[in-house]
């Protein structure tokens, strides 16, 4: 009996590389996430190997692979590429087949993508040449405050009097944070202010429709962002089971479509 076909989506992001393996029924068989590092090709290969191992399938059985993300052209074993905008749209529509706005918060860029009821892209926007509001902003701030990133959710939830940061710029925001520390503001209130700053940057990019799907590694590790956006918009926020994998799943779905 011929083994079932399998499809890989490889999302080489500026921060992390993600691989998703799907079967022809679009079931997620395995996945892996690694830091992208400096050798994108090697990372993509080792990440694929881990994902296939998780799926209990040998490399030789891979039917088709689509790469996406910042390092999409650095994946040596790819059969084709798609942009991360297309892949996040595809992945989100797979999980939530409806008209929606996709918000992807990545390590170095943000995307706001609007889809119609058939999953077609109506418009998309990426952040300008600026890291404000991206994962890099939160990473920078966690280092400044000497707080592990994973602790920031709970700290923000403990806030009673959020500090609102006024600056667009990551560097100036850091100065504002130091200024607030000096003035005796509580760390949870500052951390909540940092999350609010991220949400503000996103909401400046485009208007949102009634249903919003949030994806990306920053959302995966900072679910408080989802709660905060929900509070601001009055609900209608959806998150896929593995938000960090959405782009890779989308790429894998493109691989499957191209094979059929």
């Amino acid at each position: 009996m011929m083994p079932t076909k399998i499809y890989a989506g490889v999302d080489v992001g500026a921060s992390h590389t993600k691989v998703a393996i799907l079967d022809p029924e679009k079931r997620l068989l395995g996945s892996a996430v690694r830091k992208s590092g400096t050798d994108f090709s090697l990372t993509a290969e080792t990440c694929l190997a881990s994902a296939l191992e998780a799926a209990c399938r040998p490399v030789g059985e891979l039917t088709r692979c689509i790469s996406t993300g910042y390092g999409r052209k650095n994946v040596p074993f790819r059969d084709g590429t798609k942009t991360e905008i297309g892949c996040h749209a595809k992945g989100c529509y797979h999980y939530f087949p409806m008209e929606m706005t996709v918000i992807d918060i990545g390590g170095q860029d943000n995307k706001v993508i609007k889809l119609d009821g058939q999953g077609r892209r109506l418009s998309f926007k990426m952040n300008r040449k600026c890291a404000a509001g991206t994962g890099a902003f939160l990473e920078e701030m966690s280092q400044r405050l000497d707080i592990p990133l994973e602790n920031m959710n709970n700290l923000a939830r403990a806030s009673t009097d959020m500090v609102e940061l006024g600056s667009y710029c990551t560097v100036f925001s850091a100065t504002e944070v130091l200024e607030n520390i000096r003035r005796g503001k509580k760390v949870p209130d500052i951390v909540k202010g940092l999350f609010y700053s991220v949400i503000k940057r996103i909401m400046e990019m485009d208007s949102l429709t009634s249903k919003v799907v949030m994806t990306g590694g920053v959302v995966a590790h900072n679910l408080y962002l989802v709660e905060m956006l929900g509070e601001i918009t009055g609900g209608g926020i959806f998150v896929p089971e593995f938000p960090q994998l959405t782009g890779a799943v989308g790429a894998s779905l493109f691989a499957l479509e191209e094979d059929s």
Partner: protein
Amino acid sequence: MTDKETVSRKEFKAGKTLKEIMANHFYEMDEASRTGSKKIAWCTSVGPAELLRGMGFLVFFPENHGAMLGASRTATELIPYANALGYSPDICSYLTSDIGSYVRKKTPLTRAYGIESVPRPDVLVFNTNQCRDVQDWFAWYSREFNVPLIGVHTHRDISEIRDYQTKDIARQMEDLVPRLEQLSNEKFDMDRFKEAVGYSRRTSELWRACLESAAAIPSPWTFFDATIHMAPAVVGRGTREAVDYYELLLDELQERVSTCIAAVEGEKHRVYWEGMPVWGKLKALSEQFASLKTCVVASTYCNSWIFDQLDPGAPFESMALAYTELFIVRDESYKESYIKDCHKFFKLDGIIFHDAKTCPNNSNNRYGMPERLSRELGIPVLTINGDLNDLRCYSEEQTRTNIEAFVEQLEEI
């Protein structure tokens, strides 16, 4: 790996003549600058060049030099020198790179033509129809060379053009004459002036025909080709050489159309470029669009050297009208309507807006126009962030991804 494609640009036979025209332009200017054989006027891109020619000046266009600084990718390293003199990185990067170039004594004219520096002006003549920056730009050189700065102050945000506006501009141009006579030591010669306006008019007609050839499917050329071939329309405005050049180019374009030669092999999508070129990335962008089988068929930028109203029979009045009709000085509703006409004429599938960080007057995405046009025309739009010359404002990877995703979006329609 199936996604790697190589593309080759289809060169124009007229390109050889183009190079000769440009070389002659700069050599003539350089010779006059060194020997004083002729007076030299610096003129803004849509300044009163015909009048200057009519008065016997050789005309040098610093904006053309700015574009050369951008295209040669030397602008970005020169801009900081102007910044250090107090010229903000947020103002026109033609201005800052050009002043930086002068301060550092580094010009692309050296590599291209063996010319040491830009020609020394005898007078600086501006028209603020491009922006206020051109006046400030020339004011720096006026102080540097101790030469007069004169010009025309345009009206802005014009909806319907009114008589008082064109009369005012015509009057301002007429008022330049006594000062120019004094500087050139020549009496104003109306016949020579009319002849220059006549050449400009003919150049404009031919340039329009060249640009409109892109309405053919497939298009015989791209916006990127046109940004190169527009040089004689800029520096040779009001001359016989420009007329001859566009007759030659038009023949070649018409031949391409009649034999279905496509600028972009397998053209699938046709888009419009609104805003300034990213001069330092013309080749890279041209190749990316070609690899995506997408032809950028038309642009506001190249269309801005069409001056339908020029009339040698009424030179001052018609110049005033032609320079007031310009897209750049019109109001938002005129601009929208203009782009809608282009959408229909060029059969566009999408529009790309270039938000040039240092050029607000040529960045028409900033007041909601992309969203309105997308809604009203039912086509996708994309805004890319960048700049005409300052590549510090341009993210290569982000732009490439945006363009690729835009074409993916066009494919989904």
